[in-house]
């Protein structure tokens, strides 16, 4: 009997010891390690699309896209929020949590880092996974290059000189100084060129760069959501305009216009522009590049869209919106009563605070009463914008009549009387600016337009000296400065 017990105990003990075998090799089910990533087609898909996702996240974070591009221009009036008011008044060093977010470029650099990583890793995957063809890899790679180029362009517009990082970090987090913005823009331009070479005009399977269905989906799934030749060229045109190389920009825009049959780009009616299935739902021909949100994919959110700041009762349950355009401003911006946009972009004009109603993407499933989940895409480039950009470039390169025709086409489309050919060149440029302002209100353009049209002193409290001193840029965040001693704060914000 005793032997049985002893034997039993020995077995017990042995069980304990031998169970150590492999018990400590537990892989996390919550995160993927380096060695398990970038090996298969799925890794490639997820890793490359993460670039789009991260860019969207950076732009949506505390509505950064509008804080950067719209608020500073001052056409929106703030109701209560001190942080928004501070941006509007160019007090960009104020102490608000959100202000820290807007000053901070880390999320944009996360996009860059992911792009750098994908560019380094994607070419190796076809050899590891035969389901992932070289052509598909080239296509994904080109998109990633486009996102990297766009992100750098975006950052230059916001911060001016930014450190140019094009390689994967080695974990040493080496500090780099700010690179002169022209160098960054040239890099972005060349990257865009590289991308354009491998990108199709559309993801409809009819172009040599992309055949068949891309990732199993047809053009209706991808239209205007992915990087295309057109998106790349539009980006290049904007880079050239920012560099004041208008002829360069014009040449690029011409390429897009010449390939109209391939791009499919088209103008949009005001009705479609503001409709629930329109521009801000996207996947449409007037959009050149959009960062997508989509109710059907449950890519919806309570924060991150301009609606979060502009909508109010009865559309969402709050009495007052964070910001609105005053009636005076509306009438000032849209002086002609015939303008179709006047009644569609705004509502409740009789009240103290009209509601900005151009973007109001609430799916029927979240209406009455509203559940605040918005699904408007961030429309980065659209055709109307490109046409007005072309008009600007034509005018600046001496083609007065071409610019006038383009502008009057746009005006006609919005039911405005044409600008007469008796106006001076300066007046015409101003009219182009004003048309851009009307058409693109709330889409995050006005601040950059003020910069490129040289109208910052006219519209804000900043002087030309301030502008020359770097006031058009955002200050570099305190966190970034303290972590990288090689960074020097923009002069104006010192």
């Amino acid at each position: 009997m005793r032997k049985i017990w002893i034997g039993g105990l020995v077995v017990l003990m042995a069980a304990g010891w031998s169970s150590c075998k492999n018990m400590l090799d537990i892989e996390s089910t919550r995160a993927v390690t380096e060695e398990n990533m970038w090996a298969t087609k799925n890794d490639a898909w997820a890793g490359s699309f993460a670039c789009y996702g991260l860019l969207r996240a950076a732009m949506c974070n505390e509505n950064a896209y509008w804080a950067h591009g719209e608020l500073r221009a001052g056409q929106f009036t703030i109701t209560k929020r001190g942080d928004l008011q501070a941006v509007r008044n160019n007090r960009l060093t104020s102490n608000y949590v959100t202000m820290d977010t807007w000053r901070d470029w880390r999320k944009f650099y996360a996009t860059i880092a992911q792009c750098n990583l994908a560019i380094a890793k994607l070419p190796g995957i076809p050899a590891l996974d035969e389901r992932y063809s070289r052509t598909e890899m080239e296509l994904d790679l080109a998109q990633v290059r486009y996102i990297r180029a766009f992100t750098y362009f975006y950052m230059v517009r916001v911060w001016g000189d930014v450190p140019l990082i094009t390689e994967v970090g080695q974990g040493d987090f080496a500090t780099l100084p700010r690179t002169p913005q022209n160098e960054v823009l040239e890099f972005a331009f060349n990257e865009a060129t590289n991308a354009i070479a491998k990108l199709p005009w559309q993801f409809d399977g009819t172009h040599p760069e992309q055949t068949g269905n891309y990732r199993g989906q047809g053009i209706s799934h991808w239209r205007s959501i992915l990087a295309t030749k057109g998106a790349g060229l539009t980006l290049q045109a904007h880079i050239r305009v920012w560099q004041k190389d208008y002829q360069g920009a014009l040449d690029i825009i011409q390429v897009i216009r010449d390939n109209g049959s391939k791009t499919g780009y088209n103008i949009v009616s005001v009705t479609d522009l503001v409709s629930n299935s329109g521009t801000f739902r996207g996947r449409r021909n007037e959009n050149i590049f959009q960062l997508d949100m989509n109710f059907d994919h449950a890519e919806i959110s309570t924060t991150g869209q301009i609606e979060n700041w502009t909508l109010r009762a009865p559309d969402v349950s709050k009495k007052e919106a964070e910001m609105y355009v005053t009636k005076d401003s509306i009438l000032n911006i849209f002086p002609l009563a015939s303008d179709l946009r006047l009644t569609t972009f705004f509502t409740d004009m009789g009240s103290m605070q009209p509601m900005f109603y151009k973007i109001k993407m609430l799916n029927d499933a979240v209406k009455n009463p509203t559940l605040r989940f918005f699904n408007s895409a961030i429309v980065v480039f659209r055709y109307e914008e490109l046409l007005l950009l072309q008009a600007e470039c034509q005018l600046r390169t001496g083609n007065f009549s071409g610019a006038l025709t383009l502008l009057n086409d746009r005006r006609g489309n919005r039911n405005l009387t044409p600008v007469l050919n008796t106006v001076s060149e300066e007046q015409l440029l101003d009219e182009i600016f004003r048309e851009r302002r009307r058409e693109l209100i709330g889409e995050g353009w006005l601040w950059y337009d003020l910069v490129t049209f040289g109208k910052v002193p006219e519209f804000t409290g900043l002087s030309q000296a301030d502008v020359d001193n770097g006031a058009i840029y955002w200050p570099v965040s305190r966190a970034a400065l303290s972590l990288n001693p090689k960074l020097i704060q923009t002069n104006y914000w010192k």
Partner: protein
Amino acid sequence: MTYFYPCTRKKQAFLLALLLMGTGAAAQKKVFSKSDSTKSVSNDATERLKQLPVSNLDSAGYIRNTEMMLRQLGATSSPDLDQARKLPYIGINSVLAGRATGVDVRIPSAEPGKRNAIFIRGASGLLLKNGDIFAAQPLYVVDGMPLQYDHAFAYDIQRFDFNRIGTEIDPLAFIDVNDIRSISVLKDAGATAKYGPAASAGVIEISTRGPRTGELRVEVNGYAGLSLKPTLKVINGRWERDFRLPFYDKYATAEQYRSFPAYLADSTNAQYYGAADWDESYYRNGLMTGLHAGVSGGTRLASFRFGVGQSTLQGQDNTLMRRYNVNFGINITPVKRLDWSTYLSAGMINRKRNQSLRDRMGDQDYILNLDRPPSPNKTLLDEYYNYLEEGVDRNRNTNVRVLNNLTYTFSPHFKFNSRFSIDYGQNFRDLFIPSTVNDGNNFANNFDGLQTRMTLDNSVEFNRYFGKHHRLVVTAGQYNQWDRWRYMYGKAYRGKSDYIKIYQPSSPGDPNNGSHNLRLTANFKDRIRAALASFYGNIGYDYKDKYSVSLYLRQDGSSNVTEDNRWKMFPTATASWNISKENFLRESKTLSTLRLRGSAGRMGKLFSLDYYNGGPVYNVEVGWEGTPNLSTYNAYPVLNAAYELGYVAPGIGWAYTDQPNGGLDFGFMKDRIRASVDVYARTDRDMLLKVPVTQEYGYSGMWQNGMDIRNSGVELTLEATILQQKDLAWSSALNASFNRSQLLALPGGQQSVVLGNRRFEVGKPVDRFWLLQNEGIYATDADVPSGMTYQGIAMKGGDPHWVDQNGDNVIDDNDRIMEGSHNPKVQGGWANTVRYRNLELNFLLSYAFGRKLINESLAARFDFANREGADDIGAVKEVFYWAEPEGDLDRVPRYNPWSAVSPYQVNQTLFLEDASYVRLRSVTFTYNFRSAWLKERGMQMLRLYVTGNNLLTWTRYRGGDPEAFSYFGYDQGGYNWAQPKSFTMGFNLQF
């Protein structure tokens, strides 16, 4: 890689085992029954039991293996359980407050059954967010079985950092105080090393009343009582208007006047200007009851104990906690020399939670319309409660623990012990918020959490006396632990009807079928596994009970450490010298005990997350502020390098704790006066910290070893039997703990780091607030020093005068000072027991000095300009907003609340206040029936008692209860419920 033996240092481990085995030989029987010579005498629970009136002394049984586990070396502290048992305590932590030395009990909210925390000898590690509290908790050991604690990982999918999704039920509330024989708080390495790396933050060692040999004995314990409604100064809109108007008169622009809140502007509005009587519904006299019964008995070959209990606790805001628990223990000796014990324990806790708006918005990750606060009117509050009655909020935790222990005694000096345990917990919540109280959209969610821990411990032990005086004890063993936490969480917005309180998502093609639109539902699943494997050996030597030394060596391997660094050796040495047994003191009349103790050890620290074992990781992080959980782009899943989680440096190794401890125990006049002093310095080394790194690589930081934090301090206890007569006895015990923490090193040799709103500097304490220093107000523009800016914004009249510490005329983070801490400089308690014949009076005062708190709710009151109607969780007003703010309102200067410098920001010395206190935590009157009287009636013990809790508090703190504040030292007013005043009466009966 296979780990049959430790893969590194195999040779050393083998040699160690040989050494341990080889030295073992014959043993000595008395070893276990006699009290250990290294034990701190004044803290000894058995000693204390001896001081108690005879009738209170119950001869409880025990689980047999506990004698092996509970031999204590080193610094321990045991609260007086006999008193605590009379008090209406649900969780273990409340028992320890003021009763155990070196323990800091934190109960941020006295909501019945809600999770709380304790820290032993200061927090080990940085506490930056609520999720950090979990891993800083001590190890709870019940009868030698290490309990599994909740895991913080569900916070990952949450937007707001207050409640973790799930039930938030106190995981220690399962254990009924009536089932506990003793509690010891183990503090130094000498005491805790045997529990391995999970014990690096200290151990709460609980020994339950187990099977007992002898005649069948029944015990019944019961109590009932009331917690009292607090009195407070309720207000309505008029008060708030009168409070705000002076600011408007002085500073407001026309535009700001225009946005004066409508609900305050109209004084004819009965909703806000009517009766302020919400407190009548919100607060109540809460009922508390408890009933517990136990049966025990048996023979030497088989004995058992069975216990069953129930308790209920009501709180304010309709909260309620109800607990049921059952315990069963059995000791049998199936064959000679084999002892077999099995202990089974099961419990269930249901909790009705608070109904605050903030918590509900947090639950649904959605901010409701904040245009108007709730009304101060009782009728409207009742209406709100009635609407919520249509909803569902079920919170239930269930827990089952099984412990199985086999001991085989080969010979009197050679024993084998095998212990196996399973701890299984389920954590279930079902929530439905009807559309009537939720801006017209209902919300449903459910959380199903599961956690299991399995442990296996096998050991052999040799005991032997060499000659007459040399005793040697050698133990060698092996320990395995498997942990698993998982949860499933689902939520659904906007169901079709309030009648359907569950959710069934529609199919993708047809949004009209099902109860909810598929796109408005979300499901989450997550799990973490961890394993620990250890080999240990102990060698102890004792000479004449005068000198004893012991060396404990342990080789631990953890699945959460990178493979190359996985195994590490952790040694602990203890020694004690019983000076009073030396000849020169033996005859001393005054000094009856004098003992010197010392221990020094290094123990591993476990990582709670499984991210760190393989270098940089990839994760899904394409969400943003307010929308954290997006996982796709255009319907395609994404996976990115973990920029938000942080860069995990390759080769992460063990963090560990070094702790030397020295102690001195005194006993005077035959131990009628006993004192003990412990001095320690616990250094948590090589801890992981996510340090901010150059932002241009996208990472929010880098996880790296290398943070060292030291907690050092002194602990004193003084106990005296002041009177010891037949009819009158008086004993008194005072304890005090001093602790200070210091940051010794940061990863990569950094000297300081800013994390959130705190700054950490090497050489400075880690628990300081980081504040701007106030020095009044700039009354007019002329008072502002020329060019003075606040982060580039020119300061004006009406702005705060903050001290420009570095004199650069710019107020910014460089002018913040590290000042004040919520960790008290000294804390403890003073307990007294006075007995007159059969009547006994006991009271406990607990105290904390040198604690400072930030009165955040007061700051929020003044910061109305930024918070009124803002679409932000910080702007939520609850019904308890309608009480006069707690704090010294006159002391706060009237700044311009609309100023861009944010004059009423929370982190400034203006809101920092001393929150030292002395509190009469409990008073108990007990009547013990005489044993002769009882014997005639066949009873062994009967006592009746009345208790009062939290009856008096002395404090200079003006912000309300000095113990009700968040884990980080912020008093959030109505969210931090004070522990209520309460009275109970009850009885203990044994027959």
